[in-house]
């Protein structure tokens, strides 16, 4: 049960990341739609957007530290 939830989250997460990249195979999509739930995708999508923001902020800090500004 527990591992099942983790696995499902993981799959959703992969789906969202694939979306951010813009590539998803038909078979993977079929599985997403069969097993995943829209709400999970939206929630994880928004979370990943927050992660994206944090990632870009870290990127900016890193770039600035390298350029010494």
């Amino acid at each position, binding site marked *: 049960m527990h591992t099942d939830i983790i696995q499902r989250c993981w799959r959703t997460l992969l789906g969202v990341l694939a979306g951010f990249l*813009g590539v998803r195979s*038909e078979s993977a999509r079929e599985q997403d739609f069969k097993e995943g739930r829209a709400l999970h995708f939206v929630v994880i999508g928004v979370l990943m957007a927050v992660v994206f923001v944090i990632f870009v902020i870290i990127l900016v800090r890193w770039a600035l530290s390298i*350029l010494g500004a």
Partner: protein
Amino acid sequence: MGTIRTIIFGLSLALSSHSAHAEWALNLSPGVTEVSRSVYDLHMTIFWICVAIGVVVFGVMFWSIFHHRKSRGAEAHHFHEHTLVEVAWTIVPLGILIAMAVPATATLVKMYDSSEADLDVQITGYQWKWRYTYLDQDLDFFSNLTTPQEQIGNQQAKGEHYLLEVDRHLVLPTDTKIRLLLTANDVIHSWWVPALAVKKDAVPGFINEAWTRIDEPGIYRGQCAELCGKDHGFMPIVVEAVPPEQFQQWLAEVKAEKLAEAAAAEKSWTLDELMTQGEQVYLRACAACHQPTGTGVPPAFPALKGSPIALGDVGTHIDIVLNGRPATAMQAFRDQLSASELAAVITYERNAWGNSTGEAVSPSQIAEMLAGNADTVGEGAQ
């Protein structure tokens, strides 16, 4: 606005004048500062990257259009996904963009360099002119468009620097780090000189800064880049870069001129002299709103011709010109014009277009009012 005849006249004038200056300029100019050159290089790099991607993508596309057309007997091949290819064509542009981001970040950091500057100039945007204040130099002036209304209205051939010419240039020394402090008096403006690669918004109530270090002497022209109302297109910027010694010389000259101007206010002027100068000042400072004929554009810009203010109490008239009228487009001109210019233009308004009060306002009268009101404060006394 005009009759067909003026249009035709304008067209023929414009045609003849513009063909002489035809330029067909295609690209950014590399400019005259280190920053502007790196901006130009970035621009060209990203441009060629786009061209390369375009050639590949459109190449494949047109190849398909040519070879895979039904009329050539092409049969559709049924494939509709290929994860590897898709991942490849996502990762490659991503890599290109990251490669692009590196020099872009470096240039941006350079633009935001905050080391000490040798000269601070405050730039204030007004509807529709710029004001330049050389901080620490006791020097402060407005820079107005000088292109005559007749050229804009197509009654006259257009000059070489049509719409890009002003009465007072922003004179700056070369090889000197100059900090530009930008703000605005009314709405948002944006100060842009392409050759310096400086574009920064001037926001009312807020201060922004940019900097430049000009390598080559010359005259560089720019324009306001943020819609700021009716005459947004008519508030150009002219920067004149001169070697540092010449800059010092210029500063001395301007200061001497200022003294001479103060002396001029002392001398007594005849009505004719005032009218002649008044007309020039009026066309430069007032005609954009109140119109050369004094008829204005009601309701926003009332007529001066026959107006009770221009024909009534002279004190009220002077007060309005000096201090503006709150909450209207009428600005305070006390800082924008000298005492003699103010006297001349008020005299002109009271005696032109059939307004015939016969009254002359003397420069010394104005100078007294300016001094009397402002003596408690040494603005820019530093």
